[in-house]
């Protein structure tokens, strides 16, 4: 199976999902950029575990703050 999104798919997504019309040259640039981002984020996401969630970041900051306050 061919990997990555095509220029045509970017063009169709732009038009049909977002009502944005672009030249095919620009769609090709976006397809290339998207494929890089998509591949890299997918690879990095392999370290994700089932319970990782967007709220964890603030919880860590809050626990750091509590540690600071307890220490001061």
């Amino acid at each position, binding site marked *: 199976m061919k990997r990555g*999104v095509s220029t045509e798919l*970017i063009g169709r*997504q*732009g038009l049909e*999902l*977002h*009502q*944005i019309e*672009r030249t095919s040259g*620009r769609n090709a*640039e*976006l397809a*290339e*950029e*998207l494929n*890089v*981002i*998509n591949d*890299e*984020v*997918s690879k*990095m*996401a392999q*370290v*994700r*575990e089932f319970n*990782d*969630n*967007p*709220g*964890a*970041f*603030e*919880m*860590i*900051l*809050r626990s*750091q*703050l509590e540690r*600071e*306050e307890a220490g*001061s």
Partner: protein
Amino acid sequence: MNTDEITGMTLERVAAAIRSKHVSSVEVTQRCLDRVDTLASKVNGFISVERDEVLKAAEAADDALRQGAVCGPLHGVPLAHKDMFYRKGKVSTCGSKIMRDQVQNVTSTVLERLGAAGALYMGSLHMSEFAAGPTGHNDHYGPCRNPWNLDHITGGSSSGSGASVASRFTFGAMGSDTGGSVRLPAGLCGVVGLKPTHGRISRFGALPRSWTNDAMGPIARTVRDCALMTSLIAGEDPKDPTTFRTPLPDYDEAMAAGIRGITVGVPANQFYDDVDGEIGTALEESISVLERQGARIVKVAVPDLGPHYRLGDAITKCESATIHGKWIRERPQDYGRVVLSRIEVGFHIPATRYLEAISLRGRYLSEFLEAVFDKVDVLHAPLLPVPVPTIKEKDYTGSADVPESIASMTKLTRPSSFLGLPTLSVPCGFSRGNLPIAFQLIGRPFREADLFATGLAYEQVTGWTEASPSL
């Protein structure tokens, strides 16, 4: 006092001089306006100047002082800010064509707090369009120019803030930082800038670029001035639920304590991979200075910065596409080409990729805290690995050039934004082309005090922040 003596003062000194009536607010304001009139067009630092309003406010400040009323620590001091901090009833262009005539109906919390401390609003400063660009280019308002050499970039997106503080047009300025936008223009213009911990300073009433990565921070001439501004604007804000309720530390006390006993980490990997020779020499010297000032220096292995850069960038692109979606559909021709090209890909990143990136933020923060801040108090790192580029070198010719060129500017600054860590940029010399070099000090969450103490210990014995460009 003549114009140079007045405009050459630090924020702390000019505020004290006005309070003690050694100089009036009107005199200070008029001298700043004179300097702006004479020189600001050279650097293209201002988008608008509020001459009549600020002089009237200065007169009121002097009247109040004569009656014994002091508004706050910045009583009567004229400041100017990146043109993206909203004021009720006024336009904030956000460096764009689209918002050029839009009157805002709220006032940003940071401006309210600076106003409550007595500061006056002198004008609105140049910025990259919609805070999207690390160089200071702007298709609508022209490029901002580095006061140390007008052919070179200022860094962005808080381009006017860095250039105007360095040019002695204003004593301090607010900026915003989503991937380096306070630290780069501060460092590239030879002044000091803080990106605070996520949740330390309110973002209410400021232009959003990325809800996840945005931080508002001060740019000032010295570390002490930066600490002063931070102490006035930081803290919980009910209008911004991402702010944390916690008492602010006494930054003066922290700076007075010095850095004996502080451990400063020097990255053993990653940060120095592409550092140019003369930049590396200046950074090495700055580490030696910190050691002589009493810091313990240790090498520390840092986690891979690649995921921080890439995940932070993917998040910003998705959020920006959401923020700008309506205007990009309805009036794409009103966006600058580079800005549009940076946002556009965000429409096509799958929602699952975005959520993967956001859900990994905690894991990567945890990893960084353990690897670095279990061993050191402050991490010392390069800001920009190469000498300040020229405006021409960074004037992208096509959309396909943009991602790589942006990465070359922000690869060392974006990680702190993704991780939400406080980071201070401090000048540490000049390159052969007489353009500023700077380092970053990265701290534990909510430990801005460590950064101010370390930055001040360096600044006190080197004096780089006393240098002033001749325009």
